């Protein structure tokens, strides 16, 4: 299988830019450190050749950026989509959030992205440089050098990858993959099996760390509202400084409920959380419930599908039956 490298993507991007197919390129750019790669819009060959990055830290899902960028762009935008990104891409198309005609989507295969926290756990603090290649090579300011196998430091979402298949693209680089039988609901099931008190302790511990920075919302490709309820004083749930850990539940339930049935389980929320709260466990709870109550549904698998919360059947499960057969 062809390994996707920076050079291949740069060459592709430059050629499409130069032949006029696209007017700009949505890609990744190095941040302050090697590992905080950020999304960026490139408009010239020079910019691309200078700053374009593709390595094990390119987790960012570009779909969301298309909402704002396509409205302004004069021509087409080139975007590189990993398999998981294509689901968000489709979901946004379903919701008419951008014009498909204004995008040139290139599907790229993905073997999983690295979790910097796992690297830190191995290499310690003070990382000065990281090189991604066969192995991830980490230098620290203390002069240590670590060689880490990328497979050992995958992001949680990549360990539980649900699909290597691209569900939407104009052009595909490399080989097409398959939808994978993942174990992504195991952790949710483990929590469900806990006693209520254990589970309460678990969530209290996790959610009490929330600093309401809104990173999870800002990165979420399903959260593209023109005005978010958390920014709207009339919604009754507007942003407030966190006063105690109870209130954070409200925020996170509402956040997860708002994207229920629309969340593609891309895992960006957990990736960006500075407090390392496993937010995907909330979203996955909804996905798991939806699958078991109303039949399997993968948001974004196809454009135009009817999300479970804007659908019904006359013999749906009653709310009182939710807990039946779950003992206790």
């Amino acid at each position, binding site marked *: 299988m062809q390994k996707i490298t920076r050079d291949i993507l740069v060459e592709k991007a430059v050629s499409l830019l130069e032949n006029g197919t696209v007017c700009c390129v949505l890609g990744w750019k190095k941040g302050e450190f090697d590992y905080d790669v950020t999304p960026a819009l490139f408009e010239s060959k020079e910019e691309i050749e200078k700053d374009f990055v593709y390595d094990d830290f390119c987790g960012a899902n570009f779909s969301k950026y298309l909402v704002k960028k396509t409205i302004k762009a004069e021509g087409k935008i080139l975007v590189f989509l990993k398999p998981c990104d294509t689901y968000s891409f489709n979901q946004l198309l379903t919701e008419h959030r951008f014009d498909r005609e204004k995008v040139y989507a290139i599907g790229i295969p993905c073997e999983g992205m690295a979790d910097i926290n796992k690297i830190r756990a191995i290499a310690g603090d003070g990382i000065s440089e990281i090189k991604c290649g066969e192995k991830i090579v980490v230098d620290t300011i203390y002069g240590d050098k670590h060689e880490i196998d990328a497979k050992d430091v995958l992001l949680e979402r990549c360990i539980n990858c649900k699909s290597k298949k691209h569900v939407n693209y104009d052009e595909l680089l490399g080989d097409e993959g398959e939808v994978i039988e993942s174990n992504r609901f195991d952790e949710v099931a483990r929590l469900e099996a806990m006693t209520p008190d254990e589970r309460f302790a678990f969530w209290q511990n996790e959610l009490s760390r929330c600093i309401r920075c809104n990173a999870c919302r800002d990165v979420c490709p399903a959260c593209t509202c023109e005005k978010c309820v958390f920014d709207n004083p009339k919604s009754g749930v507007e942003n407030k400084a966190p006063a105690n850990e*109870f209130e954070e539940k409200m925020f996170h339930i509402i956040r997860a409920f708002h994207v229920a049935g629309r969340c593609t389980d891309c895992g960006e929320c957990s990736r960006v959380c500075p407090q390392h709260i496993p937010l995907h466990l909330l979203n996955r709870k909804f996905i798991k419930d939806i699958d078991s109550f109303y039949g399997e549904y993968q948001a974004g698998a196809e454009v135009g599908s009817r999300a479970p919360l804007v659908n019904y059947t006359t013999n749906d499960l*009653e709310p009182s039956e*939710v807990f039946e057969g779950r003992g206790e």
Partner: protein
Amino acid sequence: MQVKEYKPLIVAFCCNWCSYAGADLAGNNRLNYPADVKIIRVPCSCRVNPMFVLRAFQRGADGVILCGCHPGDCHYTSGNYYTRRRMALLFSMLDYLCIERERTRVEWVSAAEGAKFAATMNDFAEKVAALGENKRLEDLRCKK
């Protein structure tokens, strides 16, 4: 210090066409239920945003119950079907976050079921009272 007797606070959202009328019928028939139950009238159970439920808990409600027309009888043909899905998922999530499942309920009460309305409220209030105060999803700042 004098301990104030614990009275549960219950918010009931009732749809205008069936359940609110059912509650009126309970009144017509003088069927008692606890005064802890306070009814809010909505046009249809599908008007109830999960945020309202959470808001009630945040402000110190001990239980929240939604009442609507029986499935198939919705005045607006399909509203309660959506309610059913939304609340099934919300309640499951609340349980996941360990808000006791007895604090939430959806009940279908028709305009003719005054007795069912009263019985439901008695039962719900009793179950909520047994749980004690809602501490797990209450914003302490909101209570003076």
